């Protein structure tokens, strides 16, 4: 009886210890997750800034010298 009680007590202590370990692990991962979320948001923000249509149009026209082709010069191929 005493042996069982002691074993059970030790078990409780061990489990408590494990819980604490796992809990801190969860906390760490949650924090990492939040950090990734923030990084993702920052990157999406940056991507959207770069992908802004007004900016793309400006860059295409000014820097790359692109233009919308004149309809008269478009040849369409009938299927």
């Amino acid at each position, binding site marked *: 009886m005493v042996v069982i009680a002691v074993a059970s007590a030790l078990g409780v202590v061990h489990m408590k210890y494990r819980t604490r370990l796992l809990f801190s692990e969860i906390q760490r991962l949650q924090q990492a997750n939040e950090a990734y979320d923030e990084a993702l948001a920052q990157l999406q923000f940056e991507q959207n800034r770069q992908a802004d*249509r007004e900016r793309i149009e400006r860059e295409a026209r000014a820097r790359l010298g692109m233009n919308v082709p004149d309809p008269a010069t478009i040849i369409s191929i009938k299927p």
Partner: protein
Amino acid sequence: MKIIKPNEAPQDYGVRWRVLLGLLLTSLTVLIGRAVYLQVLDKQFLKHQGDLRHVGVMPIPAHRGKITDRNGEILAVSTPVKTIWVNPKEFLKAAPGRDKIEAMARLVGMRVEEILQKVGEDEHRAFAYVKRKMSPELADQVLAMGIPGVYADREYKRYYPTGEVTAHLLGTTNVDGNGQEGMELVMDSGLRGVDGARRAVRDGKRRIIEKIEEVRHPVSGKEIALSIDSRLQYIAHRELKNTVAQHHARSGTLVLMDVKTGEVLAMSNQPAFNPNSRSQAAPDVSRNRAITDLFEPGSTMKPFAIACALELGLTNPRAIINTNGGVWHVGTNVVKDVHNYGVMDVTKVIQKSSNVGTSKIALTIPPRKLWAFYHNLGFGQTLETNYPGEARGRLSDYHGWSTFEQATLSFGYGVSVSAMQLARAYTALGNEGLMPMASLTRVDEEPEVHRIMSAKTANMMMAMLETVVSKEGTAFQAAVPGYRVAGKTGTVKKLGAHGYTASSYNALFAGVAPASDPRLVMVVMIDEPSAGDYYGGVVAAPVFSRVMQEALRVLNIAPDQSTPSIMVARQDGPA
């Protein structure tokens, strides 16, 4: 040696002893009683009070769903931000040096005085916001300074990557992240998600020591795909903005709709505002005019009056109408044309936009039939989009119509519509008489359509409307190279406080392209162009042309006009 002996007889201490014992026992009983009371009887209450001070249920804000365009491009997204707050009690007690507060002020972008004002002087307050929703990086730097009583919480901020391009349609959320206007409000219940809750033990400084359990896991809001195509939306926004500026107009509205599904592909208004700036835009600027504002459609209404007559077999495109003199007396009133067009057929009435001709045709229609036709086209009815502030428009009951009223209704006065209603009505012409339900969200299943008129009538009307976009018509500037376009101009006198104004107009164009197999319908409304030109064919039609041209190209819709430039490319073998 003298021994002093107590001379008194030994007293009996028994009484004193008993009294003392009694006192001790009583106090013991009281103490035990109190202990029992606290530990057993009142335990629940006290434990609860203790927990209240140290164990708290804190909400975990749910992530609000994204709003995307029909192709999944992000239009509105909630990004994690941090909110800096202080505990004035601790802050004032620690009394950080001025240099520290200055450094903090720089990071949060405020003046030192502002911060001190927010903290206040009350030493008993435990909470005051300093700066809500700032960049997480800067907030972390503030925390790293280690000023006592300064804390940060995680929150979400709504961010609109497309800025003013989609500002009106999307609407806004308030500082707590709930939909306030526009699609944010329409879709709020879906976007919102369910906040989670977490029970945690806090110390006296409200810091979380131990997270006990998650009472409820937060459920993220749903992602919602709108019907608009951000590529077309951008084009529409750009052209509308340029035109409104060029013609010194008060405002402008453009609606581009899919003829077959009723999905709104672009919806733009001017003036616009930046939804990412914190300052609140005035309602005059922020409302989505395309849905909330009414105007008289003027000549853009004529195709429907004539289509009604065609449907009832009262006329045909070749029927001859006499508009000689350009003036027609209806009762005591007069219907006028801009020019005297003389004798012409119905097609020409549309092409030249003759009020006299249209009135003569419309007055052959029984009032009840004309009313029902307009009513079925959705005029004076809601579009059922649930959009906040959606206008129903006005179509008076036919019982009260005078002959003159019926005539004016045929050329679009005395009835008021929103740009979206007008665009939706034109889908009936482009879609062989079938009108779909309008939708601001992407339609993935078969759209619900209603038959408004026969395919024959709709096709006849389309053929007539094609003549408008020609050198002889009123809207040659609406032409799109390589494509056949059908449409109708409108130049509408605005209603002022005392009837129709003499010199302020709305310039309108409503059109469908490509005419051989309609895909897109667009309504352009420019409010009070005041730089000289004001005709719909001169002010609104060019916007239609430019936006439609790019939209057709972006959507990869094949040209349907055989011009010399369109030929079958030869395969000359390897070059």
